[in-house]
């Protein structure tokens, strides 16, 4: 019924190596894109945009970025929050310094700056491995947050120490600032997500992705078969940081609008994105989306049930939410260490054979 290859003959190499080789999968992908671009913008309202859709899209970019580094290249990073802060402050400085240039270019440049910072903090990965590296990336996290807090140049000497995004337009429609309509904020995030996910998917399928995976599976063996660990690890750090930087820039400019660095980009954010890729699935682009969706929706859902449904006080609900998130992570790791993406793969295999499983 579903996911049948039968009758779907490939007649060219291009057709054979496409991202979604199964026709059903391909059409489902087009359908999702069509709904996201053609239907949701007309029905979106402020609550859905701010509570669910925009954070989901932005976290999806950050999760893809971290997944490239951790899931594909095997380098655990706890510095995601710090790198998001770099993206946010870079875009803020660019927006205020060059107000005439399009914000899209600013966001991409912010990603580039974050990539450079990421490479800098990625350099020790050539010597340090495993847990030592994970803890070493915390140096990036704490140092960057401290830097943005203490050096007034980064927040343009504003009295509050906060940064807030001025209004910028794309094609004549405001996308940042308080006057931006929900659909415009949603659309700019969606465009970035769609393009970056496409780039990530194809990077991980290609030469570079295979090098990363070889390094992840066993770095010494990879080195012996001719993968250059310096290049592989540093490209992973650079590209991952680019994604995370773009996510940080969007998080600040489009989603929050005003940011206090310790609060918005603290260590909690690093762990949140890490959880997304664990729950979603390490080494899977779809998993990044699934994990982001899960961890964005879960608090909203729990809040609605516990506070709205049962009428419990919010602080109690917040603590129970912590317990449930922690418990779910452990449960997920026990039941399916490869995350939602693996569940999805298993489900697809089942569907292919359904209704005659033998």
């Amino acid at each position, binding site marked *: 019924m579903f996911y049948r290859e039968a009758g779907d003959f490939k007649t060219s190499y291009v057709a054979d190596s496409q991202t979604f080789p199964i026709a059903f999968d391909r059409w489902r992908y087009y359908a999702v894109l069509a709904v996201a671009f053609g239907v949701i913008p007309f029905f979106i309202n402020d609550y859905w945009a701010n509570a669910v859709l925009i954070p989901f899209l932005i976290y999806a970019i950050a999760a893809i970025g971290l997944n490239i580094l951790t899931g594909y290249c095997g380098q655990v990073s706890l510095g995601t929050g710090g790198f998001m802060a770099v993206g946010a402050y870079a875009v803020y400085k660019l927006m205020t310094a060059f107000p005439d240039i399009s914000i899209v270019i600013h966001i991409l440049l912010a990603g580039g700056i974050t990539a450079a910072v990421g490479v800098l903090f990625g350099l020790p990965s050539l*010597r340090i*491995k495993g*847990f030592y590296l994970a803890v070493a990336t915390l*140096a990036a996290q704490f140092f960057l947050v401290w830097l943005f807090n*203490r050096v007034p140049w980064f927040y343009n000497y504003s009295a509050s120490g906060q940064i807030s995004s001025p209004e910028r337009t794309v094609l004549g429609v405001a996308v940042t600032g308080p006057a931006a309509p929900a659909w415009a904020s949603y659309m700019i995030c969606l465009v970035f997500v769609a393009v970056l996910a496409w780039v990530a998917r194809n990077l991980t399928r290609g030469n570079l992705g295979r090098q990363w995976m070889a390094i992840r599976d066993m770095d010494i063996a990879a080195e012996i078969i001719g993968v250059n660990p310096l290049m592989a690890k540093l490209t992973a750090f650079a590209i991952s940081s680019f994604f995370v930087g773009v996510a940080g820039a969007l998080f600040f400019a489009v989603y929050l609008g005003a940011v206090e660095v310790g609060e918005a980009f603290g260590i909690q954010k690093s762990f949140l994105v890490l959880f997304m890729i664990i729950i979603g699935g390490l080494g899977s682009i779809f998993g990044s989306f699934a994990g982001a969706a899960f961890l964005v929706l879960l608090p909203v859902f729990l809040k609605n049930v516990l506070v709205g449904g049962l009428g419990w006080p919010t602080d109690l609900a917040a603590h129970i939410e*912590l317990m449930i998130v*922690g418990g779910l992570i452990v449960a997920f*790791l026990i039941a399916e260490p490869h995350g939602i993406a693996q569940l999805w793969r298993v489900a697809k295999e089942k569907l292919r054979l359904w209704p005659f499983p033998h």
Partner: protein
Amino acid sequence: MPDTLLFAAEVTLNGLMAGVMYALVALGFVLIFKASGIFNYAQGVMALFAALTLVGIQQGQVPFAHLINAVFGTSVHHFGWTVPSLLAIALTVVVMIALAIAVERLVLKYLVNQEPIILFMATIGLAYFLEGFGDVMWGADIKRLDVGLPQGLNSVIDETTFNIFGYGFFIDNLDIVATVIAAALVLSLTVYSQFSRDGRALRAVADDHQAALSVGISLRYIWVLVWAIAGFVALVAGIMWGTKLGVQFSLSLIALKALPVLMLGGFTSIPGAIVGGLIIGMGEKLFEFFVGPLIGGATENWFAYVLALLFLVFRPQGLFGEKIIERV
């Protein structure tokens, strides 16, 4: 002696004392890492949980009072009695042992043979769970912890140094107690692991899981044991830090301070944890004292990490860690 030098000496001493406090947390990490290869991120939250439980028992709080009130519409808070400190500590140890058994039964048992990174993530999940659990059980407000430890300026040191240098050193009594307790703890742990039957089994497991299993050591028992010991170390750290800062959420963040200590000392070495703690404690206080004012202050947030990072580039296994040998 010039004033700056005296100041620096005082800062160094205080840094060393603070380092002992970091080392107390780092000890718990090392114990679990050695025995099971698990990097237990939840150690800091365990310290918080232990301190919360201790205060709760001491003051006769009703566990889960907040939850019970929310569900049944009652308003219970305290049983109306207080428990003496020593009994409360003993009861908390029982709770921590129960926690160790629960962790082994519910989590670790299912994760045998998983990759270290998966186990690490599981302990992060555990940390979240415990944090929420502790808050639901005992409430999230800041509590004062007082088990009768001396606190405040040590007047003997103050007077002696004043008589010698003409400047009194400020040393907190609590830090001195912490140093003594840490020394006793390390000594007893070393004796325990060297000479007792369980201690030898523990070292055997740390050396090689499979070989230990094949000579008849129960892995699960050892894991419960080591988590219980780590729980006890967490309790000691929780008492020290709780007395110093009050029992509150930020207590769990001391785990983050212990990480660079571990990196510096090596994940597998108990003396390394102590020496690493001393270096970090002294280094960050001195750096804050000399360089901090020039670049905006509050350098303690990141100095330890950057120091550890730079150090690791030259010696990836830490000061006392086992030499990393890699094979294909």
